[in-house]
Structure formats: structure tokens, C-alpha cells
């Protein structure tokens, strides 16, 4: 999901993590003990400078990926399922590579058409997106029933930025203080359908650079997931 960063107009920055979920029709949750393929989170975090530019931070990114991955493992385990980890970088060849790229295209399409940016008249009858039956090959390759994808992009304001914010506010001008947007996608690998999709905006207590924040963020994101 590296390619499309959308500011979702309907989500407002709030004190808690806000989420906006889409669920496919007639979804039956996986039975207990199902295996979830946890795809390594694709996260990139930056520092928002006083001038409003984003400086990528390798350390924050690495921390966030580790913390979110750990939190996801806990979440999956707590819903009495097992998980298998996969790093997409190792799976980009062959059919699995095509399915991962297809998921990126499907995810981008969901972001654009399901969250009000563009209408799609041929998709009016409920949330209906799929990777196709080829997803079964992922099920076989990894011995998994479902796949959970996580994607995050965002920045955190530097103290200089916060100071600028204070000054500008006094002048009656609001400036963005940084935000982190996450989305998760749950795919039923036996049918290829995207059964659940969630877009969230992290609140201040859900700072994924530390383990507790990542925990809080993942809890908010996974609440209501059909797992």
C-alpha cells in the first residue's frame, strides 16, 4: 500500500483512535483454532518538522513494525486462533507475489471507492471485493485460512512543530500536528474475499513507537474484526 496516501475526509482527529470499518455481507467468523497469516506490517513513520515537511525516521519505523506485529500476534492469539508470519519481501516471486500485488491494487481501490472519494456505481450492493480463488494457493503455501494485512503511514510533530503550532494558534491559524493513519484488511484465503477492512486514525494514546501505544492502537483497529 505504499503508493496511495489518502486523507480520509470523514475521519477527524480525536482524542481516541477513530476507525471506519467495512465488512463484507454474510461473513461467518473463522472457527476457533483457525490459522491467520499475519503479513508483516508495512509502516513508514516520519518526523513533522516546524516547516511542515516529513523527515522519514528509520528507527521509529522499525519500532512501529515490531510493536504492531507483536500486538497483532497477541490479538490473534487471544481470539483463540494461531498465526503464521510472512514478510512480503520474501514472497514477491511467483503466484504469491501476484496475489500480494493484487491485494495492493484491491486495497487501493477500496480506499478510493468505499470511503467516499469516488463513486463506483457497480459496487452499490454492499462491500464486495476479492482476490479471487487464487488466494487458495496462499492458503496452501502457508497453511493458513485467513490473511491479515496492516498498513500505516504518518508523522509525529517535532517539538519545534508544536512550538510553531502554539504560535500560529495564537494568531488564529491552525496547522496540522501530525497524524498516523492505519488500515487493516482481513482476507478469507479460501474464497479470496476481503471480509473486513478498517481505516483508523491513531489517537495520542496509541503511539505505535512504543509497545503500549501499539497495543492500544491494534486493540482499537481489531475491535469488531470477525475473528
Amino acid at each position, binding site marked *: 500500500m505504499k*503508493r*496511495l*496516501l489518502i486523507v480520509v475526509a470523514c475521519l477527524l482527529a480525536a482524542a481516541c483512535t477513530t476507525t471506519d470499518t467495512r465488512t463484507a455481507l454474510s461473513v461467518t467468523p473463522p472457527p476457533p483454532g483457525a490459522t491467520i497469516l499475519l503479513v508483516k506490517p508495512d509502516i513508514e513513520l516520519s518526523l513533522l518538522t516546524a516547516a511542515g*515537511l516529513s*523527515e522519514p*525516521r*528509520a*528507527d521509529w519505523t522499525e519500532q512501529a513494525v515490531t510493536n504492531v506485529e507483536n500486538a497483532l500476534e497477541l490479538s490473534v492469539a487471544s481470539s483463540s486462533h494461531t498465526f503464521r508470519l510472512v514478510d512480503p519481501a520474501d514472497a*514477491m516471486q511467483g503466484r504469491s507475489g501476484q496475489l500480494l500485488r493484487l491485494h495492493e491494487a484491491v486495497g487501493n481501490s477500496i480506499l478510493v471507492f468505499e470511503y467516499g472519494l469516488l463513486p463506483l456505481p457497480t459496487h452499490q450492493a454492499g462491500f464486495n471485493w476479492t482476490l479471487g480463488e487464487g488466494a487458495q494457493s496462499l492458503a496452501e503455501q502457508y497453511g493458513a485460512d485467513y490473511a491479515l494485512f496492516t498498513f500505516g*503511514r504518518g508523522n509525529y510533530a517535532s517539538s519545534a512543530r508544536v512550538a510553531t503550532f502554539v504560535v500560529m494558534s495564537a494568531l488564529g491559524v491552525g496547522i496540522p500536528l501530525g497524524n498516523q493513519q492505519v488500515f487493516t484488511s482481513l482476507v478469507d484465503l479460501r474464497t479470496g474475499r476481503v471480509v473486513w477492512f478498517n481505516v483508523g486514525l491513531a489517537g495520542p494514546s496509541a503511539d505505535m513507537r512504543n509497545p503500549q501505544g501499539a497495543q492500544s492502537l491494534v486493540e482499537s483497529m481489531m475491535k469488531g474484526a470477525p475473528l
Partner: protein
Amino acid sequence: MSRRAAAFVAGLLLATASAAPALAQHRAPGLVPDPTSVEGGLWGVMERAEQDAKNSADLNDDPALNDYVRGVVCRVASDYCDEIRVYIMDRPYLNASMAPNGYMEVWSGLLLRAENEAQLAFVLGHELGHFLENHSLERWNNQKAWATAALVISVGAGAAGAYYGVDTSAIGDLAYLTAVASVMNYSRTQEAQADAIGFERMVAAGLEPTAAAAIWRQQQAETRASSFRSVRQREAMGSVFRTHPLTAERIAALDAMAQEHPGGLEERERYRAAIRPHLSAWLAEDLSRRDFNASLALTERLERDGLDLGVLEFHRGQILRQRRDAGDLELARDAYRNATEYEDAPVAAWRELGDLEMRLEDPQAAAAAWRTYLDRATTADDRWIVEDSLTALETSS
């Protein structure tokens, strides 16, 4: 290096440096930055760009070609060779770029435009020069580079183009913008520095000193020959991503440097042998830029040594036929005809020749060419088109 960049470098947590290189003092080989630093952030971005290159449809992973190019890289990179990872991308523009983490892209447009190994070695050495002098870090520290790179990473230009029938291959503006390219926007001083390093290393590898000025000069000539006025009006660049041109000063400096060194090897035949299996495909891709006159200039240059004339004359025919200016169809016919004299002529040459002979009202020549095509192209899926043309011709006579 600027004082500010030097301060950043000093603040980096350096991994153990191995022996200093024999040539000028540069960054220590095996340098790895502190992930909390600005350079660490740049590396993170470059790592992701490298992943994209690995997964790209444009990647050319032909083992023999990769071995050859890596060999040339190592010839100029000496003890940095181990930390460089080369990715050959099938993209029809002159470009090579090297990220601070050792990830290097070499585009097919460059491989088509170098006339010999010495010229390729110079350009790769030039890029290595930017790497050795940490020029990208200096640019990265420039806030403008950040903002642009962030934009490029966030929204692929290609993604936007994908939604519409919008041409994303406009002259000089490419759909293939990567984080690497957006940062590689060096200053005049940096370009001159890199020229010098590229030259030094090329010569140290025993290669011909005049090759450096030669390839930059060719690039100027091709730019001046462009079909597109906007390209002609812009000065030639050492890479399609640069904004600082190949000035007369830079070329004169390289000429002067060459004067002070004895002759070296060019390795023309070895170079052409290395690129031969890819020549047809790269030329066809070059044509997709639709800069017909530049493509003709390139073809002419490639023909200078009398090698691969079947492929090259066929390609000339393709260019002229698609350009379709007054008189071009005759010229194209002549080119296809020439092509058929050579062993390496693609079989399509006879089909194209037949089609043009027919259009230019020589049905006998058309029939002869078509029959040869049918003899040679036994498994072509468009035989029926040529058979139909022949039948129509035979029934009308």
C-alpha cells in the same frame, strides 16, 4: 563537502571501517548510519526503493548481463564492490544512480548509449563519485529534497496515470520517479566532483581516458537531434533526472584530464557482445518514447562499428515507418531491404518490407518479400495476414 554535511557525518555512528581505498580519501567502506539520524532516515527510504526495484516489472535479471555490468562496476569501485548491489532496469532513458546504502540502478537507456566498456565505466564511476562524497546526504539535508521525495514515495505518479488515459511518459518527466531519483539532484560542484572521480577510477582501471568526454558529448548531440523542441531547448543532462547540465566546461575539463593520460582500453567488441542479446528489445523500448530523430541518431551511432546491422537497419525501418514524414516510407523500405542482407535480421523485416513494397507500388518485390517471410516465420501467428495479402495480390494480377 559542506560544513553542515560534515557535521552530520561526524555525528553518525560508524560501523568499523575496513582499509581505506587506494585512491582519494572518501567515505569508509562499509559505512552504516545510526537509525535515529537523518542519514538513517534516508537509508530507510532507499531500502524501500530497493525493494521496489527488486519487485518491479522493469527489472532485467538476465544472469550474463548482470554479471557483466557488475564486473564493470567492480572494476571502478575496487574495495567498495562488495557493498554495491546492482539492479538493471529496462527503461529507455540514460540513467544510472547510486543510493547511499549501496543500491545502484543502471538503466537500459544507458547501456544502449555507451559505445564501449570505457564509456559505461566512466558513467558508473561518476555515480560512484556521488556515493563516495556523500552528495546524496547533502541533497537530503536540503529541505526541498525531503518534501519532494516524500511526495514521490507517498503517491506514485504511475498510480495517478493508471486511472486515466493520461500520458505519463512526457519528455523529461517520467512515471518511474523513485526516491533515489528525486534525491539525486546534484549541484554543479558536485557534478564536477563526480566527473573527476569517475575519470580517475576509469583510468585507474586501464580504460581509455577520452571515453569520459565522448559519452557526454554524444548525449549533447542526441539532445540536439531530438524531435521535440522542448528537449532541444533544454541542455543535455548526464541523466534524465538531473537539472544541472552537461556544460561545455565539464566536457572541456574531461578533455583536459584526458590529455594528461596515455591511451587505454575501450573494449568495444566485448561491450557489444554483452548487450547483443538485449539490443532488439531495448531499441523497441527506445522507440516507445516516440522521439524519432533521437532514436535515429542513436541507431546511427550504434551502426558505426558495422556490428548488428540486421537488427539496426530493421530498427531504422521501424523508426521511419512510425515517424511517417514525407518520404519516410521510401526510406523505411530501403532500411528494411538493407536489413535483409544481414544474418541477424529479424524475420519481421520481410513482412514489413513486403507491406511497404506493396504500398510503394512494387507488387513483385512485395510478393517476393512476403513469400520469404512465410518461408522463414513458420510459427508466426500473423501468417494469415501475409497469406491474405499474397492471395489478394495474386488474384488481382
